[in-house]
């Protein structure tokens, strides 16, 4: 294709201006020199309003997620990698193999093109590592002060093999609850960056694509009922959702919850409960009790599941309470989060 612009985009000093969203030549140049250059693939190259995809071999799973995290760059990732991982995970916990992503960008006038390039580059890398293709996208620009740098919405499509059904409504009393690793790393990484808190060991976001771990789990032959990634609202929100959908109660063991000690100390310091802090690379699995050990072994064998643990079980409970046996030896409810504890975490 012939290059549109006479002068290349200034990707060092340049900034987004209103013309980059106008539908004119400047926008085409931004897409060509920045987005397409970073994300390059046969589908984007089609250059049409929509993308034509091959016929899938199985049922489709689709999910969408907007990302408004602040700050845009944080230890362990940035809004770009997060927007890829987040949507891949939403597709993957359905049991599907994620294949394609669509990405929509809302840019604020004045946003540095160098930052945009870095973020799109990080999306490209995250997608490549996950063997997922970003096949279509959109860009809009809003006036200065009407956005906060950059928001990204990604939509993912994956394929679910016949015969496999996972869902939040399938947990039954007696089932075991497994968690793939430590709690609260993402939320505390964001928060400590935002609050300028320094800890002995820096807290790093756990942002990661979980579909490979999930593929491993699915081949273990354990009867998995439910998979879900405990993002906003943390483990507490996820378990309460499942308890409600399945009309069951749950009992967690506080002593079994994997925790990174620095995250635990940071939570304590800020008066936060790690059960409510967001994760971006963890999953909860509910499976038949007899299969729990086998599933645990499969999870621990995967790099993203090394610290997996069986953390509780599903109970019969007409009230649908999620309870926790505390380390102290008492018991408490683990309720939904009320109000907004940590805005703009993902």
């Amino acid at each position, binding site marked *: 294709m012939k290059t549109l612009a006479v002068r290349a985009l200034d990707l060092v000093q340049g900034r987004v201006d209103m013309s980059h969203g106008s539908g004119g030549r400047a926008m085409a140049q931004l897409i060509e020199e920045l987005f397409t250059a970073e994300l390059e693939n046969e589908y984007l190259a089609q250059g049409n309003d929509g993308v034509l995809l091959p016929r899938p071999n199985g049922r489709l799973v689709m999910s969408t997620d907007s990302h408004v995290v602040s700050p845009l760059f944080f230890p362990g990732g940035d809004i770009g990698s997060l927007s890829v991982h987040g949507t891949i995970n939403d597709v993957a916990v359905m049991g599907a193999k994620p294949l394609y992503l669509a990405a929509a960008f809302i840019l604020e006038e004045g946003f540095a093109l160098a930052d945009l390039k870095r973020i799109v580059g990080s999306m490209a890398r995250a997608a490549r590592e996950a063997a997922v293709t970003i096949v279509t996208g959109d860009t809009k620009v809003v006036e200065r002060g009407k956005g906060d740098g950059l928001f990204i919405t990604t939509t993912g499509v994956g394929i679910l093999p016949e015969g496999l059904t996972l869902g939040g409504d399938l947990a039954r009393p007696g089932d075991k609850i497994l968690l793939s690793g430590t709690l609260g790393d993402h939320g505390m990484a964001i928060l400590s960056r935002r*609050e300028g808190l320094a800890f002995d060991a820096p807290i790093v976001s756990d942002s990661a694509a979980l579909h490979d771990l999930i593929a491993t789990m699915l081949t273990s032959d354990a009867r998995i009922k439910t998979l879900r990634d405990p993002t906003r609202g943390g483990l507490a929100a996820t378990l309460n959702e499942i308890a409600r959908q399945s009309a069951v109660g749950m*009992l967690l063991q506080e002593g079994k919850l994997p925790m990174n*000690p620095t995250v635990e100390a940071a939570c304590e310091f800020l008066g936060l409960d790690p059960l409510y802090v967001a994760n971006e690379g963890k999953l909860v699995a509910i499976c038949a009790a007899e299969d729990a050990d086998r599933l645990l072994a499969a999870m621990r064998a995967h790099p993203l599941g090394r610290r997996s643990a069986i953390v*509780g079980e599903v109970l019969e409970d007409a*009230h649908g*309470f999620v309870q926790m046996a505390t380390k*102290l030896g*008492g*018991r408490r409810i683990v*309720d939904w989060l009320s109000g907004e504890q940590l805005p703009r975490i993902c």
Partner: protein
Amino acid sequence: MKYVDEFRDGRLASQLAASIAREADPSRSYRLMEFCGGHTHAISRHGLADLLPGNVRMIHGPGCPVCVLPIGRIDQAIRLALERQVLLCTYADTLRVPASGRLSLLKVKARGADVRMVYSIAEALGLAQRHPQRQVVFLAIGFETTTPPTAVAVKQARALKLKNFSVLCNHVLTPAAMHAILDTPSGTRLDGFVGPAHVSTVIGSRPYEPFARDYRKPVVIAGFEPLDVMQAILMLIRQINAGCARVENEFIRAVTPDGNRKAQALMDEVFELRDHFEWRGLGTIAHSALKPRPAYAAHDAEARFGLEYRPVSDSKACECGAILRGEKRPAQCGIFGTVCTPDNPIGSCMVSAEGACAAHYNYGRFREPSTGTHAPALEDSA
């Protein structure tokens, strides 16, 4: 980092629980009030009640700053934000306290008032420096723990000659509230107090002497960790069994008899006693709260904006008053968990995690017989 776990060790807890069970006299009951909301939260969050015998009952006290703030005080802040267009800063919890006309600071924020959530008063001071054209008001709440930072900020504002920074001061005093509870003629029977941790690091243990001497109520100052609270309960039971009433200090790693003299001097320099102050639930109590001294009037929002105080009574259905005095339990309020929930609080005790109603709703409501659950014994689980 072992720090957190060290104070929550299940083995130590069960040893303490065994001592409490052994020493508590089965022929009597023990009604102990934890004054401080921090303790209420720790007790609920760690399920401490499950480790106590049936005749040892913890009664939640009024030491939750958000809970004791009366409607009239939040109304003042709302008037400043709406009518005087100030930039109003406060802590997250305060945003959701119900005020008159079904408003709260959170709701007026959504209507366009400039209300900001801050983590510290220093942030509010910074906002005032960055926005010299705006009046910045910090809604200050809390007991003796949060008062010294307010004093520091007010002094700084004066040193910087800031003309746009003031404090809507609602700092209240712990001993005054304890007196009020013990002086309520119809009050509930209390056999002793678990004294606050952080407050006592500031005021020391001496201000509790009158409760032991004059009211014959033992006081044990305890740290914030659940094991601290259990140790304090054991110490209280021992005093009660021996028929004595002393001030003891479980939190020796931080509390001295005299407290933090420097912080006290600072508070005294900036603040003076109010003649009286209305508390939610406890009524109007003489000499129970602080306000900036006249020398600091420029940084006193009440003086600067000529704010008057208009008392407003609580919702009729709300039992926060009785709960703050330890006379009722949250579940005894007719609208607990139905109309009043943490997502839609009617009374202030449902707002902060330290509030008795919120703590019970968030952590303990499975224990109420009316909500009976089918959870198995602890041993059966994963």
